């Protein structure tokens, strides 16, 4: 059964408005957000250099108590503090599982994974597709990326006044 075109268009618009409204409401006091880092730090003040007030685990449901610019004062019932809005999500993040069946929570994979060489399967793929030069380029890229540490990125954010440092 085909829906009437105008009805379908109206439904799409209504759904879009609902989603937008829900997203906006989520970032208001009383709304809900979820932590999206393996360990999301909560701070005593809405400032990246403030003292720690604790940390919450990945995908933890947080209630917004107050909004101040890009900062949210949140609580998970026991831990309370300020969090940068970029460190939480208005939808619950999915935790993908590894081959061992254990959750691969947003862990510290960013730096270490970049240092690893291409997987054997990708190496074989390069051979089958005659992409050895491209493989050498990716190896070079991975080495370059490995040299760039999380501390470098943090320093960049601070110098450029980005992220929590806005």
């Amino acid at each position, binding site marked *: 059964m085909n829906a009437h075109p105008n009805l379908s268009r109206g439904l799409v618009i209504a759904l879009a408005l609902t989603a937008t409204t829900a997203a906006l409401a989520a970032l208001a006091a009383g709304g809900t957000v979820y932590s999206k880092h393996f360990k999301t730090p909560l701070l005593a003040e809405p400032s990246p250099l403030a003292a720690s007030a604790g940390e919450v685990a990945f995908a933890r449901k947080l209630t917004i108590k107050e909004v101040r610019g890009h900062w949210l004062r949140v609580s998970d019932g026991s831990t309370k503090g300020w969090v940068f809005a970029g460190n939480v999500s208005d939808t619950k993040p999915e935790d993908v599982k590894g081959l061992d069946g254990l959750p691969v929570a947003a862990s510290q994979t960013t730096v270490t994974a*970049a240092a690893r060489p291409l997987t054997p399967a990708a190496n074989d793929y390069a051979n089958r597709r005659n992409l050895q030069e491209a493989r050498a380029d990716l190896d070079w890229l991975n080495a*370059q990326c490995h040299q760039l540490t999380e501390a470098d990125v943090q320093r960049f954010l601070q110098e450029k006044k980005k992220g929590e440092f806005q």
Partner: protein
Amino acid sequence: MKILTILVLALVLAPLSQAQFDFGGLSKTFDQAKSAAKMLKGAAGIGPEEEKVIGESVALEIVGQYGGLVRDPAVVARVNLVGRSLARYSSRPELAWRFAVLQSDTVNAFSAPDGYVFITRGLYDLAPGDDVLAGILGHEIAHITGRHALKIVARGEFLSGASSLAAQQSSDVRQLDAQLQHFDAGVGQIADTLFKNGFDPQTEFAADQDGRALASITGYAPGGLRAILTQLQQQGDKSRAIFSTHPPLKDRIHRLPDDPPPAA
């Protein structure tokens, strides 16, 4: 769900080529594949190991297709500092994000699963400021966080060809070879989308919106992407391919908020 299980088996088995057909380890690998299949649901549930293999293979195709990488450490450092600043506030901060510039005069950008983002030199040279660069990279990050390429594979026709192998769970060499062919076909399907067909327009518009939001929350001017799209439209350069795999520039500009261009 059955089809998804087949996909997972196909992808998990692809690394077997490296095992030099070690039949002694096959049953263990099949068990791993079955376990992986059980826990997955939907394209969003493709596990990190599978995504890594797919992403690397797609990245190889992109680099091979577009003339290799610009091996300039300063350029790579810049795109990675801006890119990783954005990625840390994305919905998938845990990925091993890597950003690079391709040796190509065309104007385009690509992404591969598992955090690979590429921008052509032709586009990079048009983005002297970080606000514009952030707008471009934000769009590509959105493709990865939205698992857009993985969704293409998950609904691809090549899955059905793997059904007999998944059902029999055989250690037959010919069937392993068939798995590799299915895997290569899946990667080829993603590559065709990236290089020829493009994502569907709604997916691209969504990536524009999500990328803009990501740039904004990170502290970059939200009008960076709109500014470069407008610049390209006004230049009307017909001497080279410009975002040839994306919707028309005017349609993308029209759907973005009317943000002012970033300060020079």
